[in-house]
């Protein structure tokens, strides 16, 4: 029954998106407002259909309707309700359905928000977005159908992968990542449209930037939460391992980040238009590539025996999208009006942005190269190799550090003319603080060239960024007689995007510092405890108090209990555990994490022998870990500041037309 509802809804969505694509392109070619209206309605109809399909699946999951293939695959009567709900994205076919769902919602929102946009732009964009929707509806209806009827109906299912039901972050992390990935469809459609129509009027570009910033923010959240999840669940005490799945999410983030910088030059100087649009197209293509990488089975480990039929279909779609993008760019980029204004001199803000884009592009290229290299090597030499963390760190660390350095000098660079003397004067204080930071670290006994260079450059970037708030606010406070707080608020509200960007920078600096410190100054030990035994790691002493077993029905918990002493004073109890899921062979650990502002205590149970009560644990004392997550939060805050809508002073219909807006732009 549910199978039928779901499948009907998906077929309806497929029909609606197809019709929407046809009417969209018709509207574009014939400049027909009727066709455009139809295309918009089809977006809403298709969105409604995928919402129905998704709700049908959730209903089937919650009612344990094992006649639906996906429920039979991931459902289990013994799972808690929240696990059942999030099972929607615990396996391949469900995650594709979620993808279609989110795409439908984005498409509907896009159709709504651009209903007043110029007829030049919207139809193409709707058409392209509909085509992407068509593809995903086609996947859900065909090779990735989660609604396959199962017969005979099993009495119970295995439940989702235990790793995925082990932490509450699983509720937010995947949807955030999907909201980021899927959301890149809209900028892609808008970018393609800009090329089709060869018009880059200010309002459209501004809207493109905002539609990019939203998924960029979600992608940031998804990546940070993914790191947090892996820290809290996987038990090795790290957050980023450069595996293909992580790289898949990082690649579009890199190009999107490059875009949010290059678009500033585009908006302000009417330059780098073709390049900014290339970044938009590349970002979408990388999300598709990333999805292909995680789902095709091509990048799986040597002992993953399944290959999904979805792989070739996805590759075909990727190939078509790639060819389409390259052809479109080659055919239309020269049609874009040349910039009316040149770039700035050598030491100008423009050059800073160019270098920023160069670094981000090189970073993207490096990560992509390393990720696909095992395939390249195998097809050229027939031998297998792995490319992992050591490789990516080798290139990522210097590139990242140079990017932070650029973050330190970029905001000080003036637009247009270059005045090196002024720039140097401006950088005196930040550079001095950077040097003092390095000196202070040395005095505190910290060593290592990498972390010290990171701290110095990060301090410089932080001071420079804060100056961007402080100096204009001081000028304003003096000029208007306001308090400093009011002046800062005033400065920020006047230029939300710029200051939102600086807030994001502060978040990035936190993450960079925390990452460098945690990687460099961790105390770690692998210990085997007998009851009563005490061991010291860093400034922490652990005393093993014994083990116990708890039965939760669907899983068995083996818990070891340790008393913590820090600098001789008692500091509570940590209880790392192993979870043994009834339906899975190998136990899954839940490490105990004790976070403080200065350091985390991380205790992860490797083995617990219930007979003689011996416990083997990995113990880590890692500095500043908490600042990674906090920095992520600051990045989100900055994104929100940048996105916060400005009060509308002009009625929508009377917005400044294309050329005029740019004219007043100075």
């Amino acid at each position, binding site marked *: 029954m549910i199978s039928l509802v779901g499948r009907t809804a998906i077929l309806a969505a497929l029909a609606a998106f197809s019709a929407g694509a046809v009417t969209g392109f018709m509207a574009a070619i014939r400049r027909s407002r009727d066709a455009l209206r139809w295309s918009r309605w089809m977006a809403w109809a298709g969105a409604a259909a995928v919402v129905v399909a998704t709700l049908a699946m959730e209903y089937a999951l919650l009612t344990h309707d094992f006649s639906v293939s996906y429920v039979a695959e991931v459902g289990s009567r013994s799972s808690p309700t929240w696990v059942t709900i999030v099972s929607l994205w615990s396996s391949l076919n469900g995650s594709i359905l979620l993808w279609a769902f989110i795409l439908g919602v984005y498409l509907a929102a896009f159709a709504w928000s651009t209903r007043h946009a110029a007829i030049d732009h919207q139809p193409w964009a709707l058409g392209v977005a509909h085509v992407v929707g068509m593809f995903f509806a086609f996947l859900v209806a065909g090779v990735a159908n989660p609604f396959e009827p199962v017969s005979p109906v099993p009495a119970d299912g295995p439940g989702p992968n235990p790793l995925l039901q082990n932490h509450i972050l699983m509720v937010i992390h995947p949807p955030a990542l999907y909201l980021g990935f899927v959301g890149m469809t809209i900028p892609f459609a808008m970018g393609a449209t800009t090329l089709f129509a060869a018009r880059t009027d200010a309002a459209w570009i501004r809207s493109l930037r905002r539609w990019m910033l939203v998924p960029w923010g979600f992608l940031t959240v998804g990546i940070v939460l993914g790191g947090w999840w892996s820290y809290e669940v996987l038990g090795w005490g790290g957050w980023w391992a450069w595996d293909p799945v992580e790289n898949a999410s990082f690649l579009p983030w890199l190009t999107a980040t490059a875009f949010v910088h290059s678009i500033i030059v585009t908006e302000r100087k009417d330059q780098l238009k073709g390049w900014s649009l290339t970044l938009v197209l590349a970002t979408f293509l990388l999300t598709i590539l990333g999805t292909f990488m995680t789902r095709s089975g091509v990048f799986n480990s040597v002992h993953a025996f399944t290959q999904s039929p979805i792989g070739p279909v996805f590759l075909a779609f990727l190939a078509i999208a790639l060819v389409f993008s390259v052809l479109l760019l080659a055919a239309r980029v020269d049609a874009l009006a040349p910039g009316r204004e040149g770039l700035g001199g050598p030491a100008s803000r423009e050059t800073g942005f*160019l270098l920023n884009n160069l670094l981000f592009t090189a970073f993207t290229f490096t990560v992509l190269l390393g990720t696909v290299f095992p395939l390249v090597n195998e097809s050229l030499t027939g031998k297998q190799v792995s490319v992992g963390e050591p490789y990516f760190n080798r290139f990522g660390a210097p590139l990242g550090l140079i990017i932070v350095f650029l973050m330190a000098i970029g905001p000080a660079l003036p637009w247009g003319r270059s005045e090196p003397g002024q720039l140097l004067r401006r950088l005196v204080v930040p550079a001095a603080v950077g040097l003092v930071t390095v000196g202070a670290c040395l005095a505190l006994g910290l060593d290592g060239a990498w972390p010290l260079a990171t701290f110095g450059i990060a301090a410089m970037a932080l001071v420079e960024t804060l100056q961007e708030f402080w100096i204009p606010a001081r*000028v304003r406070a003096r000029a208007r007689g306001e308090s400093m707080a009011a002046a800062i608020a005033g400065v920020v509200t006047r230029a939300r995007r710029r200051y939102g960007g600086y807030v994001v920078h502060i978040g990035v600096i936190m993450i960079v510092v925390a990452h460098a410190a945690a990687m460099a100054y961790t105390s770690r030990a692998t210990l085997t405890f007998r009851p009563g035994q005490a061991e010291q790691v860093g400034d922490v002493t652990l005393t093993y108090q014994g083990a116990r077993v708890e039965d939760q029905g669907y899983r068995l918990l083996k818990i070891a209990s340790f008393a913590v002493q820090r600098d001789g004073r008692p500091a509570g109890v940590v209880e790392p555990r192993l979870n043994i899921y009834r339906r899975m062979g190998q136990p899954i650990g839940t490490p105990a994490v004790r976070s403080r502002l200065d350091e985390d205590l991380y205790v992860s149970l490797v083995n617990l022998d219930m007979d003689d009560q011996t416990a083997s644990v990995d113990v880590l004392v890692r500095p500043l870990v908490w600042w990674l997550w906090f920095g992520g939060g600051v990045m989100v805050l900055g994104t929100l500041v940048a996105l916060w809508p400005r009060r509308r002073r002009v009625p929508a219909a009377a917005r400044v037309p294309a050329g005029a807006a740019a004219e007043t732009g100075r």
Partner: protein
Amino acid sequence: MTRFILFSAWLAFAALLIASPAWAGGPLITDITEQLKQPTHMDEPPAYAPPDTAVVDQRTYEIARKMRCPVCQGESVAESRSEAAIAFRERIRELVAAGYSEQQITDYFIDRYGEWIVLEPKAHGVSWLIYVGPGLAVLVGLGVVVVRVRGASSAPTEPAPRREPPAADDPYRARILAELGETDDGRDA
């Protein structure tokens, strides 16, 4: 000024690459059958005297980080909680505790499993690609940037279209004042 910054950044990058240990690897194991004759399966004597526990922990972790867990998806032996990874870690720990060097231990695993067991291929043959590629990309990109910036600064400069900043003797203060009157898009408020 910019050229100086560009140059030093690139120089630093190049120096890092050159200093990297990937270059150091000589030929892989030459005579494997010789090694396998020995029942310990490590034919050289250990490189060091047995180190103490804290050093063993640290060195084991450093080696395990660079080794791929054979049954996982892209995880290293240090990260994975799988049986295979635990067995690997124990074996590495044993060898470290016996005083074997990182090179010896890595070679031992490559010998048994093939080169894919390490997470960073040695720079030989096709693998040069991934070591040269990023540097090449940066170089080409720098070329493009330099051409664009040169083009921009040598182009005939039109009279500055920008609104003249309020009179002030300090050009920096002038810029602040100009920016204060300005919103995101560079438009006047």
